[in-house]
């Protein structure tokens, strides 16, 4: 009887606060980008919605299928008063910060992901509301390639976080 009661007690204690589920954080690898291009291209571009007067971010993949290293220097857009290349970084005590970066290397035969929690284009002080479903033109200026114009959709938040990476 004593053994049964002790076993029941042990089982009760284990299950008392629910099962501790050690699930890994749901992250998705970025979609594989076949580098069949022999050009420098911008793919998967999107802008977060935000209100007039506030800031938002533009994300994309810079696919350099050429045999030459290049550098993203600046980005232009009519929808914001100021456009800067930024990166999010981890500071002390688990704090997160953001800073401007002057030029981002896009090495040959590689893809650089501008992604949440990483590199992004900061669209500062929007001239009007930027709403889900809309599309806007942006011009990306590279050191060697010159200018690339693209149209990016405004998309609502991701339902799952994507954690991109720099591939070579």
């Amino acid at each position, binding site marked *: *009887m*004593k053994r049964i*009661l002790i076993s029941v*007690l042990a089982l*009760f*204690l284990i299950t*008392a*606060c*629910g099962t*501790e*589920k050690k*699930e*890994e*954080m*749901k992250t998705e690898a970025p979609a594989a980008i076949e580098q069949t291009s022999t050009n420098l291209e911008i793919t998967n571009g999107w802008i*977060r*919605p*935000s*209100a007039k007067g*506030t*800031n*938002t*971010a533009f994300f994309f993949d810079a696919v350099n299928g050429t045999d030459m290293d290049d550098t993203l220097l600046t980005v232009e857009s009519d929808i914001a*008063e*100021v456009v*800067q290349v*930024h990166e*999010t970084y981890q*500071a002390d*005590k*688990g*704090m*997160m*910060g*953001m*800073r*401007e970066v002057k030029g981002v290397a896009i090495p040959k035969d590689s893809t650089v992901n501008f992604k*949440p*929690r990483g590199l*992004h284009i*900061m*669209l*500062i*002080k929007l001239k009007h*509301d930027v*709403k*889900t479903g809309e599309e806007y033109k942006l011009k990306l200026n590279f050191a060697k390639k010159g200018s690339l114009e693209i149209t990016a959709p405004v998309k*609502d*938040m*991701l*339902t799952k*976080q994507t954690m991109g990476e720099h591939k070579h």
Partner: protein
Amino acid sequence: MKKILIPIAIFFTFISCQEKFPVLDSWGSANYNLVNQDGEKVIFPHALKGKVSLVTYIFTNCPDICPLTTNNMRLIQERMKKEGINHVDLYSISFDPEVDTPPVLKKFAEMRDLNLSNWQFLTGDKKEIDDLIHQIGVFAVRGDSTVFEDGKTIYYYIHTDRISLVDKEGKIRKNYPGSTTNIDEVINDLKDFNE
């Protein structure tokens, strides 16, 4: 024998729950006068008492981390509804109250089509907010800034990235990394935790 074991089981159950959700921090006896996105007064954390809460700390000029954290709060809210968890309220406190007035917070929520039925965005006097966040070890320090032609300046904060699980007494029982929160973990915790 049975009479002895039952109180022991109750005692150990209490202890094991305390271990899973220990009291990490609290606002003590302090209360802070805040306002929500509709300009309604909210005495914090007094207003939280009686329900479990998830509390996060943001600023609306943040283009990356705070939108991710806000999106995670939304995902949690959607899962709560789906799983019938209705004992939890959500709060987002701005640590940039000079910019984040109630109309700004309201617009922030509207642009993201957020459901505010059990979610409030809070702001207030700068000193009040600073005292509130410092009390529980949340930091928000001005970092880079952009100065415009009209002389106005936007500041970007280096800040704590956190969602806090707060009990019915207003005490913090667990912290999650806001922008990378594991939604399943939070939902499982909320199913277990109703103190």
